[in-house]
């Protein structure tokens, strides 16, 4: 299943003009600066933004083709708005039931209990929506959307109206959505941290146009994209917990390119994790250093080098096909005679565990 979308929407001094295919599973992040058309695209997919000219097919459901337009209430989707969206005239339970009872019985795949359990909101059911905290409201809103058994879940920056503490409260639930849901999720965001933690795919918008789209780990390290530049440039690595070292209190994480050793994390063996390796924490050597405090050293092949300001370069490396970024000085690159295809050793000073 895929989602094929083609929209041309003109608003005052802004035009969204995109033509894209989105994978039918996993979380696809729609990413870009504010004002780039992320929300407009999501609203167009939901049918909230009516355009005379557009095409949208989600799996085998045709939702728009020119003047053929399925109104939002006839599209089996869930939508989580950026700002709180609970009805104040209904309590939490009746908010949850509002969508559920409008879905034909034969289409009901998610029960109220499942949605309530997934977001851990059973203790809130009899409360008034105005009594809830911002984080609780968003959890109820997500559960309410899921209770309609949608074929696709659309989320418009569901965390952006929340403070850091609330964000961290909701994040685990979003991650569990990722693991439990069989449906595709479109997640609009302009926060790189959220995207790195949640997304599988990335759709990059710029000024109303599609800049690039693809698998997240690939997109983050593509030197032709802005994501792979600047202080926050980082590679994403999918790994699994291989074991723990009790003597030195360490945890081993395996990925296709080798094994990371990090300070102990209380995670079960075989647990899947995401690692973020920031480009400025990676240094390169032409020979394998043995007298060093750095534990994580991997043989790598240089794929591409681009200038990063006047004094530095950004290097894209492959560790057995897994991309990694290293930001080093232009002088070091010259001393080491770095060129594409050259074999080097990547020393990773620190890694961040995202989940």
């Amino acid at each position: 299943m895929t989602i094929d979308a083609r929209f041309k929407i003109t608003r005052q001094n802004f035009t969204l003009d995109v033509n894209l295919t989105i994978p039918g599973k996993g979380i696809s992040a729609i990413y870009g600066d504010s004002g780039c058309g992320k929300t407009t695209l999501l609203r167009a997919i939901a049918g909230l933004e009516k355009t005379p000219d557009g095409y949208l097919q989600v799996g085998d459901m045709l939702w728009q083709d020119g003047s053929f337009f399925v109104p939002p209430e006839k599209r089996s989707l869930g939508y989580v708005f950026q700002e709180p969206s609970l009805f104040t005239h209904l309590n939490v339970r009746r908010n949850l039931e509002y969508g559920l009872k409008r879905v034909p019985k034969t289409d009901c795949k998610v029960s109220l209990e499942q949605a309530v359990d997934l977001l851990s909101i059973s203790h809130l059911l009899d409360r008034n929506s105005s009594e809830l905290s911002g984080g609780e409201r968003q959890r109820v809103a997500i559960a309410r959307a899921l209770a309609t058994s949608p074929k696709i879940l659309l989320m418009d920056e569901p965390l952006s109206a929340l403070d850091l503490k609330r964000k961290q409260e909701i994040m685990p639930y979003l991650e569990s959505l990722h693991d439990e849901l069989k449906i595709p999720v479109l997640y609009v965001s302009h926060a790189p941290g959220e995207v790195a933690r949640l997304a599988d795919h990335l759709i990059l918008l710029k000024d109303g146009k599609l800049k690039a789209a693809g698998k997240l780990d690939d997109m983050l390290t593509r030197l032709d994209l802005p994501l792979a530049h600047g202080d926050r440039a980082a590679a994403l690595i999918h790994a699994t917990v291989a074991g723990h070292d009790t003597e030195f209190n360490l945890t081993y994480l395996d990925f296709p390119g080798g094994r990371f050793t990090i300070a102990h994390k209380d995670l079960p063996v075989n647990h899947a994790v995401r690692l973020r390796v920031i480009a400025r924490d990676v240094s390169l050597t032409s020979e394998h250093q043995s007298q060093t405090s750095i534990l994580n050293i991997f043989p790598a092949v240089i794929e591409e080098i681009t200038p990063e300001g006047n004094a530095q370069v950004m290097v894209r490396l492959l560790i057995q096909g897994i991309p990694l970024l290293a930001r080093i000085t232009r002088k070091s690159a010259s001393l080491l005679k770095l060129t594409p295809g050259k074999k080097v050793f990547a020393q990773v000073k620190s890694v961040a565990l995202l989940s």
Partner: protein
Amino acid sequence: MLNDSDLSALFITLKLAVITTIILLIIGTPLAWWLARSRLRFKFLIEAVIALPLVLPPTVLGFYLLIALGPNGPIGGALQSLGGQPLAFTFTGLIIGSVFYSMPFVVQPLQSAFSAIGERPLEVAATLRASPLDRFFTVVVPLARPGFLTASVLGFAHTIGEFGVVLMIGGNIPGQTQVLSIAIYDHVEALEYSQAHWLSGGLLLLSFIMLMTVYALNRRFSLRNVSGIS
């Protein structure tokens, strides 16, 4: 105390106010909804027409309605040529006059209540599978409850208090078109002050109780978020 003709004036007044309020809610709700939502450029014309009774002397409105509804007027004449009766000096004529006269008092509170709700709760309801009509009755109506209450009470109270329009198109036929405000006027003219006191005092008390109820209830509602979502 009250004589028979006072009682029938009271009954006619209440009947007029109830029927007028019901008619105004039925036509005022879609009208107010349209005014609150429409982005049409000429909307202001219709808003101005609806607001006219707020500033116009009631006798002016009554005068034009009398002409329109009378046997030689466009509406009365048309009715007569169809074999009906002209509407001037009838209870039906009173209702038509009152509907025009009290329209702004019903439409404006509804319009501002609908505007306050905004687009978002409706979009939320749409993504939760509610059709437009469903959205109106399950989201807009409950959220606009204070607006409906204010509109009903103001429409009702304002109809009870009208004088000029009623006098012009209803005349002053006891038992048919004589309403309280005119009965009071007649009593004062005849120097029957004690009866005028009874009717006036009763009207004053009734109006005060109704408005007090509205403001008390709306105060309770207004503690809730006006936009309808949280």
